[in-house]
Each structure stands twice: as structure tokens, then as C-alpha cells.
């Protein structure tokens, strides 16, 4: 009888009371859960070098600092993938504003542009990521929200047309307006770029873009070393880190050297026209002057540098 009395001297002989045990288990589980919850943070912090953590905004970097940053990124790329890459930082060509047009009468939705973008820009192989989506559209409608990207039948299908959509490089870009840290901005040549080292991954810009043109790196892109395109740009196709936004940059590592974008070169129907909007004799200006061009969601006032036409 006295044995069962909790206040009896015999109780003091027990190493731990039930209450203490419960507290101990609770504390251990709680600490374990907390450690598990914050572990990605610890892991990420260990990956971020002090130099990367202290890196300033792209626009605030001096030329020497930029060169230093690029040297570091190249070294990190070599360390992570075993592949030697060249990261450059091409400035906009003075007197150039890029424009793009697509002839929707020629485009047949084969998607070669989507694949070319995927390879050129070191996109994640697991998700077949790309800056371009081709929408299968009902003839007679220009409502891109009703387009379908998952068609996999022989193209072109009866009564359909195909609308490739990528960043429209707006003159009035809503994505730039909403960025809380100014990690994305519009350059002199009209290209809207992202500083992947400044982006905090809040995805406001993805929500703001009416063209669904921005992509989020849910994980670090998986690109086999032998498939990495080593010709890279700081603001364009260098392999992005996890947790940042990215978008079509008109292949600026190519176009700022006078080359055509990868998606244009890959198009088997010749539907894509690219050039300098400020050159009155350019191909793109001839298209604007001689074809009935339209822009997507004109009513939003985004003023795209991307045009579409039928002929």
C-alpha cells in the first residue's frame, strides 16, 4: 500500500519520474524537429562563400569587382561540375534596341525553339525547363490563357495555330516594378535581366508577369557536365543557383556579340525574325512596317518588344 504512495521515501529511489521522462522526450523531439527544420538553412549557409555573401548588386560593382566575381563564379562552376566554362559580361551595344517577331502563319508548333533554348541556356534536364512555351491555340482566338502547352500530336493540327511565348522584353515591365530588391531591371538594349546573385527568390515577378515568362529554380539545375554550354554570360545562361528567378534574356551572351538567338537558328520553319529596332533598315523594322503585327495583351500597357503577325 505504502509502495504505491508517490510521496513515500521509496519513490526517491527511482532514477527518473514519469513527468521528467515525458519532459525529456518532449525536449529531445522538439530540438530534433527544430534541427531538422533549419537544416536546409545550415546546409545552404555552408555552401555560400563569404565572398558571395558580401557581393554587392551587379550595378554597384566596379569593373574590377565584376571581373573578380566572374573569376569566382568560373572557379565555382569548375569545382561543382568539373567543366571549364567562360562567363562573360557583355555590355549592351550602343544604338541597339532588340526586337523580335514571329510569323504565326509559318510557326507549326514543332517546339524546336523550346529545345534549343533548353540546351543553349543550361536549363534543368530533369524538368526539360525552357524560357519558351508554345501554346496550341484555337483559330480565331488570341486569348493566350486558353492555349495548351501539353499537346503531343503531329503538328499543325486542324483548326489550330501555334503561339510561342517567351519574355516579351516589355518597355513597361510589371516584373521589374514588383521586385522588392531590384534584382531585375531593364537594360539599355531593352533586355530585362536578372542578377541571380541578388535575387531573393520571392517570386513576386513570376506572379506579376502577364505572359508567364518567368521561371523559378525550385532546385539547382541538373545539367550533366558534358552537356553544359560553356559559353556563358553573367546575366544570361550561366548555371543558376537554387531558389532564384530566371527568364529569357534574348540570348544576350550571343546577341550582344552580333549573333542570332539560339531559338531563331533552331526554327525549321523560318518563322522568327530578330534585329535592331533602332536601325530603320533592319529586317525587324521591315516587318513592323509591312506586316500587320500585334502584341500580346496590348491592353495591359506593358509595351512589349516582341511582335506577332500572320501573312
Amino acid at each position, binding site marked *: 500500500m505504502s509502495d504505491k504512495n508517490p510521496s513515500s521515501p521509496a519513490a526517491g529511489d527511482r532514477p527518473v519520474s514519469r513527468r521528467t521522462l515525458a519532459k525529456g522526450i518532449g525536449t529531445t523531439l522538439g530540438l530534433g524537429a527544430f534541427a531538422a527544420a533549419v537544416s536546409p538553412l545550415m546546409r545552404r549557409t555552408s555552401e555560400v562563400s563569404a565572398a558571395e555573401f558580401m557581393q554587392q548588386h551587379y550595378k554597384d560593382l566596379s569593373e574590377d569587382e565584376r571581373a573578380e566575381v566572374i573569376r569566382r563564379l568560373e572557379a565555382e562552376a569548375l569545382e561543382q561540375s568539373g567543366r571549364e566554362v567562360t562567363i562573360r559580361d557583355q555590355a549592351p551595344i550602343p*544604338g541597339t534596341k532588340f526586337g523580335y517577331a514571329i510569323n504565326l502563319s*509559318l510557326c507549326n508548333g514543332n517546339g524546336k525553339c523550346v529545345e534549343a533554348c533548353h540546351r543553349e541556356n543550361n536549363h534543368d534536364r530533369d524538368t526539360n525547363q525552357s524560357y519558351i512555351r508554345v501554346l496550341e491555340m484555337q483559330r480565331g482566338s488570341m486569348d493566350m490563357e486558353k492555349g495548351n502547352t501539353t499537346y503531343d500530336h503531329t503538328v499543325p493540327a486542324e483548326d489550330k495555330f501555334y503561339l510561342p511565348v517567351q519574355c516579351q522584353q516589355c518597355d513597361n515591365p510589371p516584373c521589374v516594378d514588383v521586385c522588392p530588391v531590384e534584382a531585375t531591371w531593364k537594360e539599355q538594349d531593352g533586355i530585362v535581366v536578372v542578377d541571380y546573385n541578388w535575387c531573393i527568390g520571392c517570386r513576386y515577378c513570376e506572379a506579376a508577369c502577364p505572359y508567364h515568362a518567368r521561371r523559378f529554380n525550385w532546385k539547382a539545375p541538373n545539367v550533366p557536365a558534358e552537356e553544359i554550354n560553356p559559353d556563358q554570360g553573367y546575366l544570361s545562361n550561366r548555371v543558376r543557383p537554387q531558389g532564384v528567378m530566371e527568364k529569357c534574356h534574348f540570348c544576350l551572351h550571343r546577341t550582344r556579340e552580333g*549573333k542570332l538567338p539560339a531559338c531563331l537558328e533552331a526554327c525549321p520553319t523560318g518563322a522568327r525574325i530578330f*534585329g535592331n529596332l533602332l536601325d530603320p*533598315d533592319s529586317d525587324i523594322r521591315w516587318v513592323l512596317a509591312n506586316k500587320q503585327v500585334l502584341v500580346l495583351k496590348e491592353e495591359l500597357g506593358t509595351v512589349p518588344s516582341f511582335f506577332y503577325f500572320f501573312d
Partner: protein
Amino acid sequence: MSERTKTDRPGRAWPLIATFAVLAILLFWAVYAVIQARGLADVEVEDVASAPHTEAAVRAAGGKLYPVQVRRPAGPPQVVVGEDPVTGATRLVSCTTCHATRVADPEHGRTKALDDFHGEVVFDHGAGALGCNACHDPSDYDSLRAADGRRIAYADVMRLCAQCHSRQHESYRHGAHGGMNGHWDLSRGPRTRNTCTDCHDPHAPAFPSMKPTFKPIDRGLQPDGSSDH
């Protein structure tokens, strides 16, 4: 009486035939003159490299400009006539090998109607209005022939296509038709452009159907409507 009329008829018909002949010659000359005047016979396919849109680029580059090279067919096509019995190599002969002795029958304007050779060629061009000799030169099958009878080398096939497809050719000259590679800025590098037959089969020029082979995997947009949530 009846005998006299029989003998008289040929005599009376001669002036009539002569008049018709003169009229026909006059008509032919008139049509030819009109064609010449309108420049229809002068379908000029300018060298795209000298197209006007490059002039500003020439100025910007201080006169130096990389070329726009338009791809060209290597030359007249050759016909497979079987394998060499010894080496097993494919034997090719040029068109004139056979056509030097075999006279083409203009009645057979369709490949399907031909007994041997070319019967396998699928011909679907011009909605039934065209035959072989609309483009091929019956006097020299190693070259092509414009509508006005002038010879066009196979390498200049774009000149031939442009006489009917002038709208496409106009777009082509301004970079708005046909695929290309290289540089948008000719002051920094050259450009290579396709010719008509790189993309279009001249005998069946409609662009072929294709199968999309590459699809991004977007969350929640799988074809069966499934997603990982």
C-alpha cells in the same frame, strides 16, 4: 461542176492561211513586247547581300561588312540508276545522259504517267496546273527554265521559284521568310541563309507535318491532369 470546186479550193485557201500566219506573228510579237515592257521577263533575284537593308550596317561598319551567304544547290541533280555490280556503289547519272537521246513526251506532264524513271516522284505543286516542263528545260534537262524560256542554272533555283512566289520572295529579301544562321549584325559576322529547296521539296512544296519531340514538364500541367500535389 463538182470537179472544178474541188480543184479551186486549195487555191482560194492560200491567202487566208497567209493572213492568219501574219496575224499570229504580230500577236506573238505584241505579247512579247508587253512582257518586256512590264519587266515580267526580268524577274531579278538580287543578291540578297546587296539588299537595301544592309546599307546602314555598311555605314556603321565603316564600309566593312561580312557577307550574307545564301545556300545554293551544288548543281544539277543526278538520278540513281542502280548499283555498280563490282563495287556495289550507287550509280548516278546526270539528267542529260538519258535525255540526250530520249525525247520527253509533253503529253506526259505528270510523274505518275511515266513508264520508267521518275515515277516514284510525288508531284503536288501548282494544284494540277503545272507539269514537268513548267520548271525543267526540255532542251537541256541539266538546267531549269523560266516562264519566258530563259535558262536558269540549278544553283539559281530561287530565281525560278520567285517568278510565281513573289510575296514569299519579297519577305525573304527582308529576312522575314526562310531560316538563317549566324549574325544579325553583319558588321560583326556573316550570315548563312537557306534557299527555297532547303525547306521545300520542289515537287511537293507544302511544309511537312512534324511531331513535337521536346516538352517541358510543368507542375500541374501534365496531359492527364495529374500533378504532384
